[in-house]
Every structure is written in C-alpha cells, then in structure tokens.
C-alpha cells in the first residue's frame, strides 16, 4: 500500500547505496514493504549464531555496533544509511556477529524476498553487493566504507581503530580540489588558499595536473622576495606532480611522501599525470587516517563545515580518551586535552550556526558553558547546560535582539544535540528564554538568587556560577563575575545558604562504612558516584572559592589547588580534595566508557576489591571538607 510513510522511507533510502541506483518506482514499491523498528540503547537486534531474520537492516537514525566473539569487541559501527545483516541472508548462513543498538536507534527492516529480485535484475545493485562482500580491509570509522555492507566474515582479528591493520587501508583523500591555471598570480593563489584553508593548490591544464604550489613554495619564492607577488603560477609551481591512483594505501602514501620529501600527493583517475586530477592527499590526511592525535583532531574540528563531520570527530575524541585512560596518562592532562577538544567542538558549532543565521549578531554576546562543562570536567558527553548573555540594548530593541539570539541558540543547541550532547531535561539551555538574557537582565536574575536564597535559587546559582565562556565577548562575562562578587559581599548570608546546599548531598557510606546504594528506581543497587561523591566536592569548592572572590578558575581540582595556596594552614586537606576529585573523575569516566553511558551509576558488585578501596578512600576526604565548610560558614544543624 502506497502511503506517506513509504514515501518518507524511500526519500531516505535513495541517498544511500545500493538504493541510490534503483529507480524511483522500484524504490517506492520496496519501501512499502519495510518495517520500521525502534531500538533502545543496548537492545539486541540479532545475536551471533542466530538464524538469519527474513530481513536485513538499514540504520535510519542512531548507531548500531556489530560485535564478535566472547570479548564482544566492537567490529563495526553502522551509522545513518549503513546496511547490516545482509550477507548471511545472501549466503544462507547464521549471523557471524551480534548487532546491538549503540545509541537509541531507528532501523528499517527490508524483507530479503522483496529485495532479492532487484539485486538480481539490477546489475549495479549486484555489483555493489559483490564489491562490498569482497572487500575485507575495513576501517570501522573511516568514511571510505560508509554505506557498504558490513556483516561480512572477517579473517583478521578485531581491529581497534588505532592498530597497524589500518596501514593496508586505502586512504581518504580530499575530493574537493582547489585548483588554478598556470597563469594565475601568486597573490590570487595565496588568497584562495587562505580562503579555503588549504595548504596546497593544484595547477591544472585541461583538468590534467601540471604542477603543485604549497605553503612552502609561496614562502620560499614569494615571501623571500625572490619573485614578485604578481608572478604567475607556472614560475613557482613544483612540476611534475607526483601522482597516484585512489587505491593508494596509507603506508604507500607515507612512503611516497618521505621518498620525494613532499607533503602533498595528487590523486588522478588512472594514477598517471596524464589523466584527470580527482583529489589531493596531504600529510594531514595521512595523519588523520593514522588516528588519534589531539593536534590533528583540533585542526579537523576547525576545518569542519558541517555538524555531521564534527560528529565523526567526536567519536575519535572518545577513542583518544579511552587510549589515554588505558595508558594511564595523568588524569589532569587527560582532562585538559579532552576539555580543549570538546571546547573546540562547541566553538565550531557556534561558528557554523552563526553562518547559518540570516544576519550577523546585532550586538556582542557570549556563550556560557555551565555545570561540568563550565568546570572543564566533562570527559564524557552528558546533557547540555548552557546560557547566553548579550550586550545591553535600548528597551525598544530588546524584544528583537532577544528574538535574534533565541533563533541562534536554537541552532546551536540542535547542533550540540546532533554531535551527542542530549538536551537538558530541565531546559537549562540557551534556547530557553530564561537562559538567554541581556547583561542587565542576567544581573537582575543573579541578584534575585543571591538576595532570596531559597532552595531553588541556591540550586540555580550552583549550576550557573560555574560558567565558563565558550565563545564570544569576554568583557561581558567579566562584568557578570564582578557583579556576582559584589552582590555576594553585600549579602554574606548567601554563603551560608550555598554552604548548606553543599552539605545536603547524601552520604556515600552508611554506619558500617558500607557503600550506600540507590534503593529504588532504574538504578537500584548501584552507587551514584556523581551525587554521593563528586558533587559534595564540587559544591564545597564552589562556595569556598566564591568566598575568596577568585574568578576564572572553574575546575574543582584546580579550585582546591588554589585554595591550598590561599590558605596554607589547610593545604593538606585541600590537596587531598584535589586528588580525590581527580580520582573520582577518572573512576567515573572509566565506568562511563565501559558502559557507554555517563558513568554516573556504578554497579558495586562489579568493582574489584582494589577499586572499592580506592573509592572508599576518597570518602574520608569528603567528610573532612564537609566539616570544614560547615564550621567556616556556621551552617547550623537547623539549616541542614
């Protein structure tokens, strides 16, 4: 039966091979027979050795992990448009891997008996299938394999994205050629290269590559004064160009670059300089293919023009994090690097969103990261907490200005959502009109919180006061901080309330020093490491640092270090807190990576003895700092 939904499905499928080669009518007929399946995170689609379903699957939304063997190592990650579970149907064998929803996913189940005739009738579809079944060098995270058929028998061992097997991978080169002709002037070339943010320009004649000009060539020939800025490309280009065909592997590319001491290779249709140039491969591309290097990732983020490509990079960041933890790199350094990378992602998303807006911002603004992101403690992706402040405008312009920024923040929040930051369930996001205010409006709100410190106000301030500027005008943010310090000084009673709020988190251990676990709900019997261990430290650090009027130190561990410096007599306890914070953060991150979640709830019975001892050791410190806060701010038992 033809209907609106089958159109919707066909509309999606037509973008991906092999469906893109089917004609519209066939695709619609096929779509009418599809079943749409919703899977929650961690739901199983099929198990290894299961008998094949009468369907194969296409990922519409979300991601599906294909796992194999007893250790359940991830062999492959299928994204939007990827097909899986087809080969066993064609080969009449059982599933070779387990397919599990890695995120909340929507799948299209395509009945094989309907699809098969098309595969037989249409040679292009058949060829696609044969080609993808035959290829067995695969990089789970490379775009070059996007859209291929994944569920194939693997002869090689499971590959982590970082291992040597990748060397046999064909390389991902940039297909957007930046070219000029032999008569283009050096000045124009430099301009275009700056605009396109590339390091090399290909000189072509009738689409054939005749030379290449890199940053280095411009520096050596033009900047040194050897040639004038009006020189034609032909005079300074390096010729002939080293060319290869597109099946070049990463290792071959590296070898070629080293051999000729060059940084760019030209990819041509048949691999010789006598055929059409189709792409360019830089040292940077090779490095990206080789994997996880923060500098490369930062560069890749900054070059991203689409949210989608940032989403891919986010995955590499998670792998990098995993590597760092595996190699036991100090958590202090790890936190810094990962925060920088996350920060770069946010900045780039704001930049992309700004470009999407019909006009430039009417006034200056600043994007504030709140909560754990503001404290630069966010290693795993959690919910979004953010806000926006903009320059004061005359009253008659306020509505229009607010309108502009609400439109912008909606784009940014959506962008962040797309790369994996869930929407904040309490709507503490800049797209909420309450969190997108002018400087004066913010000042008013903050004064209200400080002067009337009820439970809600204290909660709001404890979330908001950890803000960190992620993008925009720093003066606006400084003014906001000044305002907070001034107001709190005038109303010192606020410290008392903030301090008592800091003491309200439930205790981590019971009377017999046993770990206290959640008594009911979804996380029954697991330990809430965020609420029972990390939050008491974070809250204590916040109220203490605020009472010292120290601004722009946001990370809890660093706040404690600063406090140790300011109060030498309490150095020991503050340093212990700083250490405990980092230890807990690492603990949480490891748990989160293990379970592909926020790591907040820990199943106690799965911990090793050593881990339990480590966890308990931090609790003594938590108790001590809570006592210090309680005495210093004279939190009476009444208030607690």
């Amino acid at each position: 039966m033809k209907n609106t939904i089958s159109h919707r499905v066909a509309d999606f499928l037509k973008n991906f091979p092999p469906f893109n080669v089917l004609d519209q009518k066939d695709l619609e007929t096929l779509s009418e027979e599809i079943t749409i399946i919703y899977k929650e995170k961690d739901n199983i689609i099929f198990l290894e050795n299961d008998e094949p379903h009468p369907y194969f699957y296409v990922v519409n939304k979300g991601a599906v992990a294909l796992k194999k063997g007893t250790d359940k190592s991830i062999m492959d990650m299928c994204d939007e448009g990827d097909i899986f579970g087809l080969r066993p149907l064609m080969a009449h064998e059982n599933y070779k891997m387990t397919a599990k929803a890695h995120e909340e996913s929507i799948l299209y189940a395509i009945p094989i008996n309907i699809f098969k005739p098309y595969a037989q009738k249409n040679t292009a579809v058949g060829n696609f299938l044969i080609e993808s079944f035959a290829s067995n060098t695969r990089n789970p995270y490379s775009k070059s394999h996007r859209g291929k058929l994944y569920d194939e028998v693997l002869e090689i061992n499971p590959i982590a994205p970082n291992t040597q097997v990748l060397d046999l991978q064909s390389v991902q080169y940039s297909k957007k050629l930046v070219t000029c002709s032999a008569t283009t002037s050096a000045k124009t070339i430099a301009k275009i290269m700056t605009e396109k943010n590339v390091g090399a320009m290909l000189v072509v004649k009738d689409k054939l590559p005749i030379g290449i000009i890199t940053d280095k060539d411009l520096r050596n020939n033009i900047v040194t004064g050897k040639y004038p800025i009006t020189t034609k490309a032909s005079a300074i280009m390096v010729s002939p160009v080293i060319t290869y065909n597109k099946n070049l592997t990463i290792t071959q590319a590296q070898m070629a670059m080293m051999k000729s001491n060059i940084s760019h290779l030209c990819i041509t249709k048949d691999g010789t300089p006598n055929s059409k140039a189709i792409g360019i491969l830089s040292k940077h591309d090779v490095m990206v293919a080789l994997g996880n290097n923060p500098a490369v990732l930062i560069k890749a983020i900054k070059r991203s023009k689409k949210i989608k490509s940032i989403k891919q990079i986010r995955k590499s960041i998670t792998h990098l994090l995993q590597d760092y933890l595996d190699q036991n790199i100090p958590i202090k350094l790890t936190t810094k690097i990962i925060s920088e990378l996350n920060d770069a992602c946010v900045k780039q998303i704001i930049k992309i969103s700004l470009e999407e807006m019909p006009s430039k911002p009417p006034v200056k603004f600043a994007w504030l990261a709140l909560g754990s992101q503001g404290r630069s403690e966010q290693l795993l992706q959690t919910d979004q907490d953010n806000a926006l402040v903009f320059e004061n405008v005359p009253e008659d312009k306020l509505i229009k200005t607010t309108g502009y920024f609400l439109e912008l923040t909606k784009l940014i929040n959506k962008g962040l959502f797309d790369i994996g930051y869930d929407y904040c369930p309490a709507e503490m996001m800049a797209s909420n009109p309450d969190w997108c205010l002018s400087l004066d409006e913010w000042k008013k709100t903050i004064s209200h919180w400080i002067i009337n410190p009820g439970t809600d106000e204290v909660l709001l301030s404890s979330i908001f006061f950890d803000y960190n500027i992620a993008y925009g005008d720093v003066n606006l943010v400084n003014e906001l901080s000044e305002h907070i310090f001034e107001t709190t000084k005038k109303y010192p009673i606020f410290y008392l309330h903030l301090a008592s709020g800091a003491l309200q988190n439930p205790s981590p251990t019971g009377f017999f020093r046993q770990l206290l676990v959640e008594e009911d709900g979804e996380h029954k019997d697991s330990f809430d490491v965020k609420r029972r261990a990390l939050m008491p430290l974070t809250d204590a650090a916040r109220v203490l640092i605020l009472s010292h009027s120290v601004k722009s130190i946001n990370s809890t561990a660093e706040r404690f270090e600063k406090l140790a410096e300011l109060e030498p007599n309490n150095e020991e306890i503050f340093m212990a807190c700083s250490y405990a914070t980092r230890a807990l953060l690492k603990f949480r991150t490891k748990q989160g990576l293990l379970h592909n979640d926020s790591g907040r709830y820990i199943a106690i019975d799965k911990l090793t003895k050593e881990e339990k001892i480590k966890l308990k050791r931090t609790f003594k410190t938590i108790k001590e700092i809570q006592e210090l806060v309680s005495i210093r701010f004279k939190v009476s038992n009444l208030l607690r």
Partner: protein
Amino acid sequence: MIDFFKKEVNEYPDFWLEYENSFNEKPTDDLSLVRFVVLDTETTGFDYLNDRILCIGALSLVDRNIAINNSLELFLKQEHYNADTAKIHGILKNGGASCISEIEALEKFLGYLKNAVIVAHHAIFDVTMINRALERNGLPKLRNKVLDTSHLYKKTLLTSNVFKKKEHYSLDELAEKFDISKKDRHTAMGDAFITAIAFLKIKSRLKSKGQLRLKDLLKMG
C-alpha cells in the same frame, strides 16, 4: 429488558459487531504484546459539532515495530468544505479517486483498529471527532483505551520547582526534542508517524521504575 437490549444490538451493522467482538479477547498487560494504533485525523476545523474529518492516518505498533504495509490512510468525501483548512492540509474536496464516504471510512477504520490501544497527540480531539462521526451514523462510541502523547511526554520531564512545565506541548515541540524530521507535518499520516516515533521514545524514557506495564502507561496519560 434483556430482549430489548439484544434487539438494539442487532440493529448495528456487522462491522460494528465484529469490532465489539474483538474486545472479547483477554487484554494483555505485557507491553511487547500490546497492539497500539497510532492515529491522527485532519479535520475541517476544531468545532466538534460542525467540523468533519477529512482524513485519518493510522499505523500499528507492535513490539516497537511499525510495518508500513499495515497502515491505514483514509480520505473522506466532504459535503461541507472549508477552504482555509484545505489549504493547510493540502487535501482538496473530492481530490482523489480514493475518497470514501464517512460510513465507509468508519467501517474500514474500525476493521483496522479492533481492540488496539489508541495513541494520539492531544488524543481527546481525534477521539471526539471520531465519536461524533460514529454518532452521526447511529453508532456508539469507541471502546478502546486511549493514550495521549502530550500527557505522557510531560511525565518524562523533570519535576522541579526550577523549571516550569508547560500546560501543553505541541507535536512540533516533541518532534524537535526527539529529533524527528517534520516532513509531512500536517498530513494525517505524517503526524501519525511523528506521534508514533515520539511515543516510542517517550516510552523508553518512562521505564524508570522497573518494568513498565500497560497499566502504568494508562495511568499516566
């Protein structure tokens, strides 16, 4: 008295009796076995008395699966016709050959619906519109259990003084929150589809306290 009752029942057409009979089946409380029919109606307006159904879009959801070939899209012939609504919904009066009369549509709809649990966004509106149509044709009201995604969605939100829940959440808001493409919005089938995906996502967010049962869902909305 019993005789009188029986006589009345017999006046109903066969398709209604069949529909009633489907309720003799013992209802299940296991959510993976329950058949949900997610539906949306497009109407000539919002007046229960004077406005009419233009189109019904419905799809069934069993164990989180939606089979496209098992969905229902009905276009109804119109006697009264309001140009404004037609513009929004893009359904022209007697536009296609597939337009059917109200009673035919009800027959097809009930045959499809059976004893399924109805899911709709602001369900009261759709259910009332259908009930009015049934009434006009001398039939009793729908007997199905009803879930409203607008109510259910509110249950997924945090209960906190810091954050005020809205009275109503539109389907657009749900689509944005759950990242569902708004393609075909304001067609009955398109809206039914968005509602279905939203319902699935809401359901997965609601199962906080142990296994969620149909009973729990019905209590919430």
